[in-house]
């Protein structure tokens, strides 16, 4: 039995070597099928994961209220009026369904420590913001109420800033200089990982809003208000309440348009989610097509060689081979070629995914299921089209197989 298997393996390998072109094309078909499917699905998974991470880092259902009409910071025309600290308090007290309300003033500047310096974003805000944005504290603590009340020059630093200003030493209690301000580091923010492209969320220094207003910007204005909405409330209803409250506070008559806008991060999540779904579907479709192309390639080669192979089967049968011996040889041939193609395909897919993931800024996620499925599917195609024509031929009378045209 083992001797027979070895003999058959030898026969199969010899046939593979004798028909190098045919074998190569078969293997190529499988490589294309397996390689493309696994690469696409792996990259698709990475993209989905990246987007999901983005979405979760936006914080759940946060409203960003900015002065100006429409999306962005106002555009042309008269400068829209910024918000006041009282607006923040009013929203917190008068609107039902808000969990956290935080002012935000934004600036940027050079952060310096000893010889190291780093240009970064400076957010003036409150602990509410840190919580609403679901930042976690890595070392140290958030601000104390007194620090917020008094506008103390203390700060929380993001991971990117930390990395660039401090080496291995603990930053807590150390002082950094921002603009002309000396500021004590009380806490560090846990990294959120890089977002797409330039939007590095870890490149930030957070200070109490009053400190930034007084010591850096020099006025009491608020650029943006962040509101996190109680999930039990309807976000649209909460937005409507905020809108009418702000219109009243800003003295807008019934005919006047809003001079501020409310942006719901849930919209981003929804957009991103549907985009990712579309992307995944597209990748899946492309992958399916390449699998099909690979499959058709294999099929073609097998069908083209059917005449030749049928004659080969006829000859083998005529000189005394049993049908099952010939079939075993063909099966071994198909399995060897399919596995070879499958393994090469998987290797190429692995290399391509590892290489392309950083370029696309998505994580590399190895998915054993898709690897196994693609391999088995292509192998099945190879075996199917290698084996079944052979089975038909092996059932013929040898003389009919020999006469096959």
């Amino acid at each position, binding site marked *: 039995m083992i*001797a027979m298997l070895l003999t058959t393996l030898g026969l199969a390998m010899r046939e593979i070597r004798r028909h190098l072109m045919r074998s190569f094309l078969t293997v190529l078909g499988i490589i294309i099928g397996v390689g493309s499917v696994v690469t696409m699905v792996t990259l698709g998974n990475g993209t989905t994961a990246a987007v999901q991470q983005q979405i979760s880092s936006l914080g759940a259902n946060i409203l960003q209220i900015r002065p100006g009409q429409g999306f962005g910071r106002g555009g042309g025309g008269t400068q829209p009026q910024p918000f006041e600290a009282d607006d923040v308090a009013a929203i917190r007290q008068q609107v039902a369904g808000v969990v956290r309300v935080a002012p935000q003033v934004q600036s940027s500047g050079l952060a310096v420590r000893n010889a190291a310096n780093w240009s970064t974003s400076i957010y003036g805000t409150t602990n509410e913001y840190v919580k609403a944005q679901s930042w976690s504290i890595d070392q140290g603590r958030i601000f104390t109420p007194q620090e917020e009340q008094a506008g103390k020059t203390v700060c929380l630093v993001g991971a990117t800033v930390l990395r660039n200003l401090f080496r291995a030493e603990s930053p807590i209690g150390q002082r950094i200089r921002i603009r002309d301000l000396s500021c004590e580091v009380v806490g560090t923010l846990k990294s959120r990982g890089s977002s797409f492209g330039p939007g590095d969320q870890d490149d930030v220094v957070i200070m109490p809003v009053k400190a930034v207003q007084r010591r850096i910007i020099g006025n009491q204005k608020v650029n943006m208000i962040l509101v996190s909405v109680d999930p039990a409330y309807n976000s649209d209803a909460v937005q409507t309440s905020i809108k009418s409250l702000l219109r009243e506070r800003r003295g807008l008559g019934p005919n006047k348009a809003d001079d501020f806008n409310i942006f719901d991060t849930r919209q981003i999540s929804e957009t991103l989610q549907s985009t990712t779904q579309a992307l995944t579907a597209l990748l899946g479709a492309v992958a399916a097509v390449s699998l099909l192309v690979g499959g058709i390639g294999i099929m073609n080669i097998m069908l083209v060689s059917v005449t030749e192979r049928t004659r*080969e089967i006829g000859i*083998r049968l005529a*000189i*005394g*081979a*049993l049908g099952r*011996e010939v079939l075993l040889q063909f099966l071994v041939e198909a399995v060897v070629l399919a596995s070879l193609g499958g393994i090469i395909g998987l290797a190429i897919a692995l290399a391509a995914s590892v290489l392309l993931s950083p370029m696309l800024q998505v994580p590399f996620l190895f998915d054993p299921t898709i690897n196994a499925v693609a391999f088995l599917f292509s192998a099945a195609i190879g075996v199917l089209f290698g084996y079944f024509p052979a089975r038909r031929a092996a059932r013929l*009378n040898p003389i009919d197989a020999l006469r096959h045209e």
Partner: protein
Amino acid sequence: MMAPLIALRGITKTFGAGPAAFQALRGINLEIQPGDFMAVMGPSGSGKSTMMNILGCLDVPTSGTYLFKGHHVEQLTRDERALLRRRYFGFVFQGYNLLARTSALENVELPLLYRGEAKKVRQEAALAALRRVGLEDWARHTPAELSGGQQQRVAIARAIVTEPEVLLADEPTGNLDTERSREIMQLLERFNRDAGITVLMVTHEADMAAFARTTIKFRDGLVESIENHKQPVDA
């Protein structure tokens, strides 16, 4: 009288069905004794190859009985027929039927491979067979690199390499010049005489048929005549 090695009784073979059906054999009766050397002659299309294929268990008759060593071949399964071919028959096809891209040596080795012989045994026997047909220098060449006559001789080597009990040769000299044809005939004759191999060969040439002891003439799917033209040496 010995029991016949092969007995055909009322063998018919019909190709196709319905109005297109063609009866290539219309009731063949024939007995072949062990050690016979027979030539089969007849016009083209008279059914010679069809009968040879049935004798060689490559094809099955439409009706009639085929007894080989007393066994009903027409009742055997596919695998049993394959084993008969493997064990008892050597077959030279009218169209050679060598494996493409496969060296002459490996082609000749193939029947031994299916008999489960070891590589060394196979190679030695195959080389010896090639030597007998004068092709030992061409062992490494593939059919595409051989002339028609050389391919035919490889096919003969493949048929004799197993030293079969019955050698069925369908026009084994069809593509050879007279000189080569004679050599092949002498080879078959020697086979028949020295090893006691039963030989049946189809030929169109009376010269070649003269090497055999019996000539069977075919016409329109029937045996027209059987004549013994040479008596065994000591008879």
